[in-house]
């Protein structure tokens, strides 16, 4: 093993950690995947065998050190092994979002110059074949699921299990080579390359070294006391840095078990069956779960509904305090215990969150009401603020100091500073090496001393040392009268309503704010059913006058609450409309991690924005949509624009409509 002064116990790479785990935790489950209705288990010793076979097979196929290997698919143990096998032979794994359209995939594969790809199934094979002509260096593709691929030309296409078989057969021949390559890996060698989701512009390839990943994993495991006994559910995109840190970095560091769901639709069932002890989800998952609970409670019997409302109100009052170990009165505690027996416990069980010891939400700001809901149930949900460039961790909430308005204190090993412009900078062992083939961006993001610009505006709270993020530095603006414009703040308030899936607020440089709303088809559909409202499509439901009335109610409630905040009272929504289509990553309106791309939405729907500001009652529009297979079509619609009531603020005159 190559010596690196800082590598702990000589464990300087993921393959080295695998070697250790295969001896230390040999019989302990490392991966589970539900297949054919049963959880199939692989122990750490099994995993080492699988990874070695695949690594030998890759050498056999001609993988060189320094090659890039694209990994495309949903969370499957085999694809995680592929990443480690790639590292073992000195290649660099590049996980790619599996729902990317062929075009996006072409950009990534071309940019990194991948010679090999390991993909899940026919769908991904087809996409790569589609764009293959443009990829000069591309040679071989390995697939997991042979279904539908029998008739394909197998000159450059290989089945995963065959590659492993060939590797096993050539064990004697290639083992010395494999050992030598593995021994060369040190803290400086590249662990993985991940593409940013690209909120603005083209994705960038973030190069993360073994030091970045292992140090971040080690620090965070110690911070939350994660041990070999944890269970996690791996269901987030493999191309996202979070999944890499949780399902590979931390899993290999502490030796815990990674569970892969059967398929994306069974995620909730699988979550309930596994009952993870360490759970990670972006806000939209928590929002979705909450929406589901609320919908089902609407349909529950009156007795159940009353119990739910009553005890949830109590939980909101004392739950978070009990969780943080703060003093709470005897009677309140008793009542909470009773609620736990009847409501909170069964509810947590239904959600699959009973065993959660540490839960994180990250990726975006979470609505305070949503956050409070889970905390009040006694789930230790915390916020984390991070980036791909930081190997996730910048700030985290320590246990007992969780608050909904901050993102916590600097994670272990992280230094923070706030620039004069208000932008947050950090420095840590997890700071990325570079943007691949993009020295200009690297230089503009990371300075010579290793400080990295986050692109977010925030401040450190005096006294507690917690970091507060206001918004994306680029999104925060000023309204025409000079008051602060922070769209995310208002959008999050709107998104707390189960009926609102997504909201986009405009107003930068203007005299008032307007908003686009996306309704949640499930929640509103359920409501429509109960109110005997017939509809045949999303578009029709979104344009229904009664839906507009309901959303108007939500907007006005939000306005009332925004008006309370002196700094942001200018962000009340004066006019809004309900979009005729859901914002979609396939149309470029969102990133693959479902973050809104403001600029693109502004361009695409400029006619609607004009309509909102010039006071028209109705606007007709025609929008291009992209189907999942890349075909394009148009939908036309006539949208009704509504005025919403805005509230007076004591020291500020608002021009009410």
């Amino acid at each position, binding site marked *: 093993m190559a010596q690196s002064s800082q590598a702990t116990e000589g464990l300087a790479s993921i393959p080295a950690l695998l070697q250790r785990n295969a001896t230390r935790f040999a019989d302990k489950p490392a991966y589970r995947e539900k*297949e*054919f*209705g*049963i959880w199939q288990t692989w122990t750490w010793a099994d995993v080492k065998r699988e990874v070695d076979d695949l690594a030998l097979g890759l050498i056999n196929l001609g993988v060189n050190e320094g090659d890039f290997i694209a990994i495309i698919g949903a969370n499957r143990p085999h694809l995680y092994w592929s990443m480690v096998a790639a590292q073992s032979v000195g290649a660099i794994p590049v996980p790619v979002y599996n729902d990317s359209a062929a075009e996006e995939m072409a950009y990534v594969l071309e940019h990194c110059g991948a010679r090999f790809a390991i993909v899940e199934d026919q769908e991904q094979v087809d996409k790569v074949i589609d764009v293959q002509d443009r990829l000069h260096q591309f040679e071989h593709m390995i697939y997991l699921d042979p*279904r*539908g691929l*029998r*008739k394909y030309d197998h000159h450059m296409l290989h089945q995963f299990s065959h590659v492993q078989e060939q590797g096993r057969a050539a064990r004697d021949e290639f083992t010395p080579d494999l050992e030598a390559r593995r021994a060369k890996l040190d803290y400086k060698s590249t662990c993985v390359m991940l593409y940013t989701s690209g909120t603005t512009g083209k994705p960038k390839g973030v190069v993360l070294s073994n030091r970045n990943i292992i140090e971040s994993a080690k620090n965070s495991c110690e911070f939350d006391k994660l041990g070999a006994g944890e269970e996690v559910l791996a269901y987030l995109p493999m191309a996202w840095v979070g999944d890499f840190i949780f399902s590979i970095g931390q899993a290999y560091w502490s030796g815990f078990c990674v569970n892969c769901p*059967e*398929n994306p*639709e*069974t995620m909730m*069932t699988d979550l309930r069956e596994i009952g993870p002890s360490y759970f990670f989800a972006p806000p939209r998952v928590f929002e979705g779960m909450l929406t589901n609970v609320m919908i089902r409670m609407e349909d529950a019997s009156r007795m159940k509904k009353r119990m739910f409302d009553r005890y949830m109100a109590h939980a909101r009052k004392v739950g978070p305090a009990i969780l943080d170990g703060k003093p709470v009165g005897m009677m309140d505690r008793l009542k909470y215990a009773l609620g736990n027996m009847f409501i909170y416990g069964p509810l947590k069980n239904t959600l699959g969150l009973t065993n959660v010891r540490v839960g994180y939400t990250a990726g975006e700001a979470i609505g305070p009401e949503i956050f409070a809901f889970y905390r009040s149930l006694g789930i230790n949900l915390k916020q984390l603020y991070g980036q791909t460039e930081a190997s996730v961790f910048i700030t985290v909430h320590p246990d007992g100091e969780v608050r909904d308005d901050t993102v916590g204190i600097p994670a272990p090993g992280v230094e923070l500073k706030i620039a004069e412009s208000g932008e947050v900078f950090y420095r840590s062992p997890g700071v990325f090496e570079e943007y691949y083939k993009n020295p200009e961006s690297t230089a503009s993001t990371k300075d010579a001393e290793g400080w990295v610009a986050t692109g977010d505006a925030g401040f450190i709270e005096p006294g507690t040392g917690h970091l507060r993020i206001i918004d994306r530095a680029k999104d925060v603006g000023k309204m025409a009268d000079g008051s602060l414009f922070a769209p995310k703040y208002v959008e999050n308030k709107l998104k707390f309503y189960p009926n609102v899936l997504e909201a986009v607020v405009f107003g930068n440089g203007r005299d008032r704010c307007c908003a686009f709303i996306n309704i949640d088809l499930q929640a509103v559909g359920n409501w429509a059913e109960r109110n005997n409202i017939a509809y045949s499509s999303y578009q029709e439901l979104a344009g229904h006058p009664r839906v507009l009335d309901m959303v108007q109610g939500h907007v006005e409630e939000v306005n009332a609450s925004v008006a309370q905040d002196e700094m942001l009272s200018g962000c009340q929504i004066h006019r809004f409309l309900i979009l005729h289509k859901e914002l979609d990553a396939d149309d470029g309106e969102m990133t693959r991690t479902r973050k809104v791309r403001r600029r693109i939405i502004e361009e695409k729907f400029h006619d609607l924005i004009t309509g909102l500001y010039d006071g028209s009652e109705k606007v007709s529009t025609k929008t291009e949509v992209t189907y999942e297979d890349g075909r394009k079509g148009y939908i036309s619609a006539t949208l009704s624009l509504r005025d919403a009531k805005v509230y007076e603020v004591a020291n500020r005159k608002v021009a009410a409509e």
Partner: protein
Amino acid sequence: MNAVNPEGYTTADGRKIGPVMMEMKNITLRFGGVKAITDISFDIREGEIRAIIGPNGAGKSSMLNVISGFYVPQEGEVWFRGEKRAPMKPYQVAQQGIARTFQNIALFEGMSVLDNVMTGRLNYMKSGLFSQAIWKGKAEQEEVANREVVERVIDFLEIQAIRKTPVARLPYGLKKRVELARALAAEPKLLLLDEPMAGMNVEEKEDMSRFILDVNDEFGTTIALIEHDMGVVMDLSDRVVVMDYGKKIGDGTPDEVRNNQDVIDAYLGVAHD
């Protein structure tokens, strides 16, 4: 028409079609005075996707019921795998390796998807009532083995998420898929599909077409299907039989059938003098 090698042929996309599996010889079926089918002959080859099309009331479903043995024709012979078939009970048909789906879904609404699909394995359960009741030994092993087959079908048709859902709660398109799953669980040699895409939207039709092609491709199952959607039929099938008023008016590859004047007349209508 059909001047093909008796040993079989290879399709344009490289699938091997074998010799004749089932042959209908001069079938005539009457219900009292009504002639549902008049003197129809055609064959179905191993590994082929064979479509039966025709306007409403042409006798397509009756034809499928003759193939499945549910109706016994008054005249004509049905030959299956080189033997003339005598009138049979439905379970005997199933034992021969023929499974079907229905035009108007026939599932057990109150049972879960899994249980419904398990019923497709009924013919493979040999243990007696007593051993089933005490649930030991052979009965248990059998259940496990059959469950495995069923789980593979569930995986194949991507219905894992609804495994435990009662059928009554499912939307129409999924019910159709569950019905296909039950038929596949019987591991049929010949699969009969009665309007598998009726009442579906475009996306559901595309999914179903994909599954039908995959079933044929992966398991080599011979498929006979009735369908109204011309686009689907022309894309899916290797050969098509066209019926009108109980008579066969066309038989051949989709291209041949498309250009057949009688077929065009039957579908578009002609002026009667």
